[in-house]
């Protein structure tokens, strides 16, 4: 279906792809994996024509889709063959309600109204949008928006569907929903689907083949069970299989459970590490008491009470729109609650400004770039020192520790996702705040960046700082959190130690927890540490 021959692409004299040869058969679901900067998005752009027509750069080689050679065709001419769904559907919507958005592509291609109605009905049935068809796009949840975006991509009956990190912004339940839909599209309609993604645990079982892009090696198209051994960071299932001594890596938890008996026996008699959440002698550093927040007659947060002990990590989980971000902003003192009180280290953050605030609490927003105000990394660090009254160069040396490859003259917005997070963290940590809040820190981060973040957060905690992170990333929570709070529609529905929450819930439960249930192990690292200790 897709055939790339001798593709080379150069951008500003830097080669991105060299002599790429690739053949993808019809009706396959292909997963593209690789670290940040390996050219995943560029590859998707090459196939839909945005590269080089929209982005610039020089492309050589030939591309054919469904037997038609592109001969440098513009993305518009290509649009009936190749459809693209982006990471954030909000950025691509042109209409205000669901139906108008879905028919937009057909309108541009001059379909007759009767034909439009027919196809509209078809895609609405296919993606289960019956109840949403007259709704305004702004009122939909993240998963629903993504489904509308896929529906509008399908109206032109494309042969190829490209998705750039389609689930990275979604909660685990919505992400599973989207993956099931994609799986069905491949099965029922025979569409060829290409997905680029960092969090591959859930997708791997749906994939027919995996394209592994690494900077050093030539790209390879592998079977899913082979591919896991070529990744820089192996998924949790593979790591567990290795620990159990299974040579062939299973792809689903149920497959893993069938063959994991050796590991169970090795772990027999060992107990999962306890994660202390409270030292009853010391007063908690954060105390939130029955916070209720209203916006325009709607109660967004309802009677939220919890506390965090010093030196712990608390994870806020919950579906998209359950109030995680709002709660973080309220803890920063940006929203004034109708009732209730917040105390962080005996201070109310709402009345603090400037460096007083920074010494108590700092936040890394969902999009770290929001924090950047200067044109150069060096200026950004200097400004941070000035605002915090710390020694000149403090932020810069901290940044050198967190992201060593960032250069002084780079523009903060030109940095990679991981480097941007690193800069934001350096700025936040320079003032040595008592508490650090992170909003979806792993969104768009590759597995390498995630591993670095885990190390950094563990260091912060060891130094006595307290962390709260809002995240969808169950594996991250399983790895580091002491306490988990699950929010639903603005209320706390569960609050307790990680081991309790992650083993009791189906959606918010890590792969290790599911594979070794009911033993209560949370992460591969816990298992590995226990095994090592037993061996020595």
């Amino acid at each position, binding site marked *: 279906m897709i055939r790339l021959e001798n593709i080379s692409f150069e951008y500003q004299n830097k080669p991105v792809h060299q002599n790429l040869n690739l053949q993808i058969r019809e009706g396959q679901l292909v997963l593209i994996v690789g670290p940040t900067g390996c050219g995943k998005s560029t590859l998707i752009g090459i196939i839909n024509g945005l590269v080089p027509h929209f982005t610039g750069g020089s492309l050589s080689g030939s591309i054919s889709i469904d037997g038609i050679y592109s001969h440098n065709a513009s993305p518009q*001419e290509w649009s009936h063959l190749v459809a693209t769904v982006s990471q954030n559907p909000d950025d691509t919507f*042109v209409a205000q309600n669901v139906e108008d958005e879905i028919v937009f592509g057909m309108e*541009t291609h001059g379909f007759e109204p009767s034909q439009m109605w027919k196809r509209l009905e078809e895609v609405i049935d296919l993606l289960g949008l019956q109840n949403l068809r007259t709704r305004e796009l702004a009122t939909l949840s993240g998963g629903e928006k993504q489904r509308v975006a896929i529906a509008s991509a399908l109206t032109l009956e494309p042969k190829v569907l490209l998705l750039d990190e389609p689930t990275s912004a979604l909660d685990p339940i919505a992400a599973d929903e989207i993956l099931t839909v994609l799986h069905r599209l491949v099965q029922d309609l025979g569409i060829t689907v290409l997905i680029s993604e960092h969090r591959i645990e859930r997708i791997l079982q749906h994939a027919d083949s995996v394209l592994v892009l690494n900077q050093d090696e030539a790209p390879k198209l592998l079977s899913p069970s082979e591919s896991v051994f070529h990744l820089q960071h192996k998924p949790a299932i593979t790591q567990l299989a290795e620990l159990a001594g299974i040579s062939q890596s299973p792809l689903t938890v149920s497959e893993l459970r069938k063959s994991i008996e050796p590991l169970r026996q090795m772990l027999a008699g060992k107990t999962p590490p306890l994660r202390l959440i409270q030292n009853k002698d010391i007063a908690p550093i954060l105390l939130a008491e029955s916070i209720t927040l209203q916006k325009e007659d709607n109660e967004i947060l309802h009677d939220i009470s919890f506390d965090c002990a010093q030196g712990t990590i608390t994870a806020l989980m919950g579906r998209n729109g359950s109030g995680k971000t709002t709660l973080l902003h309220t803890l920063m003192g940006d929203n004034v609650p109708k009732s209730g009180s917040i105390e962080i280290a005996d201070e109310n953050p709402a009345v603090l400004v400037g460096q007083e*605030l920074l010494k108590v609490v700092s936040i890394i*927003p969902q999009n770290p*770039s929001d924090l950047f*105000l200067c044109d150069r990394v060096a200026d950004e660090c200097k400004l941070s020192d000035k605002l*915090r009254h710390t020694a000149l160069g403090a932020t810069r040396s901290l940044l050198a520790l967190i992201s060593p490859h960032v250069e002084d003259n780079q523009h903060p917005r030109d940095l990679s996702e991981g480097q941007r997070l690193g800069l934001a963290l350096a700025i936040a940590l320079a003032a040595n705040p008592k508490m650090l809040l992170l909003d979806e820190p792993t969104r768009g981060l590759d597995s390498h960046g995630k591993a670095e973040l885990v190390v950094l957060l563990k260091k912060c905690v060891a130094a006595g700082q307290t962390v709260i992170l809002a995240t969808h990333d169950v594996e991250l929570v399983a790895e580091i959190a002491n306490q988990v709070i699950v929010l639903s529609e603005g209320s706390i529905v569960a609050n307790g130690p990680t081991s309790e929450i992650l083993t009791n819930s189906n959606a918010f439960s890590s792969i290790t927890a599911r594979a070794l249930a009911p033993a209560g192990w949370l992460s591969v690292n816990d298992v590995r540490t226990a095994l090592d200790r037993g061996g020595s």
Partner: protein
Amino acid sequence: MAAQTVQYHASTWWLWAVCADFSISIQTNLVLVLLIIAVSIWIANSLIVDAKNWKSFLVMTKIAFFIFTTRVLLQIVLGVPVGDEIILRLPQVNLPDWISGLRIGGIVTLESLSASLNDSLRLSGLIVVIATAVSLTTTSRVIQQLPVAFHELGMVIIIAFTFLPHLFADVQRIRQASRWRGQETGRIRSISNNLVSICESALERSVRLAAALTVRGYGNATSNQNWRRPIYFGLFLLTFEVLRLLVSQASYLDALVLSFSALLIAVGIRKAGKSATRTKFRTESWHTADFSVIVISLIIVVLSTFTQVSMQFITGFVITTFALYIRYAKSTKAQVMVTA
């Protein structure tokens, strides 16, 4: 079933608004202007079913009222009096000689008061009529009805409508973030820094939107470009003529220019539409109710050009009947729907 209404064509009430505004502008009789305002409010009250739309209508009406009162008050307090009929003497503030042009307080004459009442009433009348049209139709629905020749213009407006809320959210987010950085808000430097951030994120957003539009096939030649110039020229002529008619007497030449520009626009739109490769999903149909509204609107326009008292009496009668008809059409339609 109480919320049933006649489904008017998206353009109908805009046509009424144009006609009513034209009448208000050329009308000399203040009673008729008041009548048109009253009928607009009556129509809005009869036909708006959505509470949100009614709220926005009330807001716009309040703005109109605010403009009316401030204008009249300013005229009383600051305006230079014209005429001899003194009706009120306000205490006057003595200002130094070098600002001799300005006056605070003093006498108020009947002539200047009535002139300012007249002007302010018209101005707020124009706003109320537009408010009616705005709250009776969804903007995106009106834009979708634009002929294919204007499709790109409509597209720009629709995208702007989707874009604006995002922009406001960006502004909010970045202002928040600057507090998080530890900046003191309100300082010039922080404002200018924030402005750059806002522009950057808006630009990034537009680039992503443009890329998405491109891969969805937008931007292929959608209409015949050759017919665009005649259409725009026709529109220019039309606007010019309408403005001219508002300030001076009509002549045969005006009629000629008017019909020529209308012809140019009509032919241009038709030709451009024929050669277009683009289609529309929602095509709305015209009903009898739409035609009656438009015909009556045109009749009111014609009637208001006459200045005789008898004709003005007829105009008032037509406008009142019109208002009653709208209410009646709504209730009968609703009944039909209930029985069916």
